[in-house]
């Protein structure tokens, strides 16, 4: 997910014996929000900083694959909608960096961690956008998967994160509908367009399922984050919810999912799906996805090429402050 950080265990297990800890846990258990100035266990702070900043980085890196198609969007309406969507994602990055900053890490530090490769972002953005259908797929499936993960986060115990999520979720569902609408237009279009849609689904389906992170049987890292009410559902629970919601939408489009094992289980009422290729997931997370290097190169280039602009803004702000101080001193004489 955008928050695959949850699958990394924090080194220091929280000490459950201190009185402060107990009071903290009682507040969380009572579904009260933890605010920036409240006492919190260091591990809680670290876990959230890692998760929120990773989420922010995902929004920012996620602007690149979709940004590819802004200049090539097929109609002016689609062009405006895509530009607005990519701009929304930048806005999400901005709120999330602000939410993470309330935990005491500056945006500059977080950005440096992204650019140095220390911080991760969602594996999904390391896949390429090859045709216009990929823009439909990202809205429909990637934003769709993000929503599944983020709706429970609207109730996260940390106030600033929960509030950012409420605002973001509204926009993500708009993106999801817009993406589905692109798919609908393609699937009702010419045979070539329909094929473009099918081919995009073939490429994206499995990587999207991987967004939810490792299978529950391979990750027991959720106990603390569950107790802290950061995470409320397991990876597999969220993945299943997503599959159940998405498969009928795909069938309505007349598309076929690239999974021969996909079938409705009469007993459970859920869609059963085939085995995910976790070696691919691990490879992409480790840096060997199709576009990892390219995405980081683009982010670093934007940052480095913009250094002189940020320096100029800073220099100007300082000159202005100095002038104001001088004018004030003169007036005081």
């Amino acid at each position, binding site marked *: 997910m955008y928050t695959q950080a949850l699958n990394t265990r924090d080194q220091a297990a929280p000490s459950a014996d201190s009185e402060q800890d107990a009071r903290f846990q009682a507040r969380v258990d009572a579904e009260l929000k933890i605010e920036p100035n409240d006492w919190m266990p260091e591990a809680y702070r670290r876990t959230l900083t890692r998760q929120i900043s990773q989420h922010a980085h995902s929004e*920012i890196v996620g*602007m*690149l694959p979709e*940004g590819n198609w*802004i*200049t*090539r*969007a*097929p*109609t*002016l*309406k*689609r*062009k*405006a909608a895509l*530009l*607005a969507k*990519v*701009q929304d994602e*930048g*806005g999400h*990055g*901005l709120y999330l*960096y602000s939410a993470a900053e309330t935990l005491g890490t500056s945006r500059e530090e977080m950005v440096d961690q992204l650019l140095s490769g220390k911080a991760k972002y969602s594996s999904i953005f390391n896949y390429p956008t090859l045709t*216009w259908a990929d823009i439909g797929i990202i809205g429909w499936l990637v934003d769709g998967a993000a929503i599944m993960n983020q709706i429970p986060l609207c109730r996260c115990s940390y106030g600033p994160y929960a509030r950012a999520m409420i605002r973001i979720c509204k926009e993500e569902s708009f993106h999801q509908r817009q993406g589905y609408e*692109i798919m609908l*237009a*393609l699937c*009702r*279009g*010419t045979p*070539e*367009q329909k094929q473009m849609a099918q081919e995009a689904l073939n490429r994206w389906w499995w990587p999207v399922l991987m967004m939810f992170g490792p299978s529950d049987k391979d990750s027991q890292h959720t106990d603390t984050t569950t107790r802290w009410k950061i995470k409320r559902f397991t990876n597999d629970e969220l993945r299943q919810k997503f599959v159940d919601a998405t498969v009928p939408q795909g069938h309505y489009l007349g598309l076929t999912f690239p999974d021969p094992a996909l079938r409705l289980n009469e007993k459970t009422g859920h869609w059963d799906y085939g085995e995910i290729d976790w070696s691919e997931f691990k490879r992409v997370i480790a840096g060997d996805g199709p576009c990892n290097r390219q995405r980081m190169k*683009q982010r670093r*280039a*934007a*940052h480095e*090429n*913009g*250094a*002189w*602009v*940020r*320096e*100029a*803004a*800073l*220099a*100007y702000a300082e*000159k202005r402050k100095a002038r104001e101080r001088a004018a004030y001193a003169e007036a005081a004489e």
Partner: protein
Amino acid sequence: METPLFTYTLRLADTALILGHRLSEWVGHAPILEEDLAFGNMGLDLIGQARSLYTYAGEIEGLRRDEDALAYLRDAPAYRNLLLVEQPNGDFAATMIRQLLYAAFAHPYFGALSKSKDERLAAIAAKAVKEMAYHVRHVSEWTIRLGDGTDESHRRAQAALEELWPYTGEMFEVDRVERALIERGIAVDPATLRAIWDRTIDEVLEEATLTRPRDGFMQSGGRSGRHSEHLGFILADLQFLQRAYPGATW
């Protein structure tokens, strides 16, 4: 048959679209996240203006060409935008200076056009004038920061100004097509905006400690379809899907 009103509306539309397209190229690559968002905003304003203007142009023409037929299915010689707006983004300073030179003109231009005897143009302009006021404010602030920032930013801003200055004359040109519309109270006479544009530019450049270039030879031709080499590449991107899949609905 191209009527003067059709050509005039198309010129405004093409200028807005091409500049909006240029700004959209920045999104995801700006020096700070706030500017990714600002480029997105300004790009959306311009593309929105273009859409209203194309729709109106199509109605004037009466050949059932909609906004997309006009934007996606005309080749470079049929495009009527100002040369200024098709110039490459260059560095951040070049983009900001280009936007300043245009917005300082477009803002009073749409202000005057909002009083046009043509109600549709007046309505489109009334909305655009508010948007362009924001562009002027935003890019003036950046021009000042860059000009009065560091030596490097000053040098880059001054270089951008020198490079783009020869494209400013075209904004004030009037040909036969427009003269007739000006006389009927439909189009704006850009000569009436010269003093306002000069004042805005001079004030911003002074505060930015930048030097106004001398007026030399001015490039023109965009509004009658004679473009720089850059437009063809913009259209190759912009029109790719419509050209590769003729007649498809998206």
